[in-house]
């Protein structure tokens, strides 16, 4: 809305816009695939190194038919989803508590900040000792990783909560302990959801990375095996499948955001994070 002149949009026009939007998105994907196809045909990439989209598609179909795809995809999705859920819940609560009680911030911030840049995958051998190969270990790594954006965004969101809102809530009989979820949580929700979106992307990335280190299942395991083998079409098929799932999750998250942020000034049907 650069010029500041939003057109009056009746319901039908909104629906039409939505269709247009999907169409534009689709068109751009088609253009990308075409460019990719042409590039491989013209051998712009080292030979055998970047397979054509058609090869990836066939590889994907093959994986799907053999049942390999869905079992492994499910494993990855479970690690990513459970890790994301626990990590973001903890991160969100920690972030709010750090804003509310300086003491909590003092206590946890050295540990939390220490984990930010820690390449968690190096700890996998240690984690494997406690949590075994696969699922639980990957979940822990994903959770610790997902915490970071949630903390950062939540802290920022809660810092920006107008003080008068907290004051109002207190005089209206909200116990100090409830301020967290009665005021800070809803008021910081736009930021928290932005953080969640960042974390969602990371969680799939990290789940797959973990599976590439040690795993008995998962898309990462497939990618490791086929990558070592030079079967890049299968590697890419796995990559695309995992990314597709993440994409769908992202769409779902945005729909949820739109619903949860109906009250928010900037929440527009197709805005960035709302």
């Amino acid at each position, binding site marked *: 809305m650069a010029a500041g002149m939003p057109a009056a949009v009746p319901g039908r026009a909104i629906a039409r816009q939505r269709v247009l939007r999907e169409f534009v*998105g689709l068109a751009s994907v088609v253009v*990308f695939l075409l460019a990719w196809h042409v590039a491989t045909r013209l051998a712009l990439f080292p030979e055998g190194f970047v397979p054509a989209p058609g090869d990836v598609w066939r590889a994907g179909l093959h994986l799907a038919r053999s049942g390999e795809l869905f079992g492994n995809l499910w494993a990855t999705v479970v690690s990513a989803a459970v890790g994301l859920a626990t990590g973001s819940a903890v991160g969100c609560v920690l972030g709010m508590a750090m804003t509310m009680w*300086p003491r909590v911030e003092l*206590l946890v911030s050295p540990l939390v900040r220490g984990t930010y840049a820690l390449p968690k995958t190096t700890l996998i051998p240690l984690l494997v000792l406690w949590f075994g190969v696969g699922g639980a270990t990957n979940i822990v790594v994903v959770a610790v990783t997902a915490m970071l954006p949630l903390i950062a965004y939540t802290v920022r969101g809660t810092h*920006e909560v107008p003080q008068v809102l907290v004051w109002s809530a207190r005089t209206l009989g909200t116990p100090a302990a409830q301020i967290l979820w009665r005021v800070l949580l809803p008021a910081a929700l736009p930021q928290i959801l932005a953080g969640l979106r960042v974390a969602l992307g990371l969680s799939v990335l990290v789940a797959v990375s973990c599976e590439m280190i040690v795993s008995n299942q998962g898309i990462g395991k497939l990618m490791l095996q086929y990558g070592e083998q030079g079967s890049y079409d299968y590697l890419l098929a796995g990559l695309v499948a995992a990314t597709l799932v993440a994409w769908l999750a992202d769409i779902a998250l945005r729909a949820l955001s739109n619903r949860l942020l109906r009250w928010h000034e900037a929440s527009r049907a197709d805005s*960035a994070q709302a």
Partner: protein
Amino acid sequence: MPTLDLDTASRPAQERAHVSWRHRLARAARRASLSALPVIGVLLLWQLAVSAGWVRAIFLPPLPAVWHALVDIVTTPLLADTLGTSVLRALLGVALAAAIGVPAGFALAESRWLRWWCEPYVAFGYPLPKIALVPVFTVWFGVAALSKVMLVFATCLFPFMLAAQSGASLVPQKLRWAALALGTRPRDMFRRVILPASVPSLITGLRVAFPIGLITVFTAEMVSGGGLGEAIVQAQRYFQSAQVYAYVLLTMIVGYAADVLIAWLQRRLPSSAG
């Protein structure tokens, strides 16, 4: 709604009366000791776990051994070779990602068409496990620094884009209106309003992206050599756990220091919450 922000602490906590420097000093000392507490706790638990034989030294070496390894690394050119190399690569990659991701994010927030066109790439590119692309990056950009810098760039691009996009889309409408009515040309809108209003969002983006950048460098180096990542992998391959943990501690210290620096920056800038 404006943030009514009395006194320096923009936290919605009880405000404290002013105190003398002597009190401040005492308070700083109390705060420092409070922060040290959990760190000391973790270290004690660590040593206890080793001494009591809960975890074998190969997975969790005794603290003194780690300390010696750390001293060895820090007092030799090894520090510059490993950590120095990695941090430099991370910095370059993150800077590049910011330079391109931030304007791109703003563009996405401002232009519906662009957003619709790019939506699939953002949604797809973000969760894409970039680490799986190490082979591709190596062929395109060589084995040396460039491929790692580019990988960091690819990973950090999206957090910056999302931060910029969400920052821009959360700018209160009345601020845009006021700026336009005061003669801001639409093409200056970005520089005059959207950018300054998004600064807090961008710093949050940096706070998330920089550690991700570091992790990416370390992980890429674990796969294709060089820097701290290679050092960790080598040590791990030979079960030199003291070195592994010394390096891990180094990454934590770097991450912590970076976050403290960014948080300091965050406090220095006038908040956009007005």
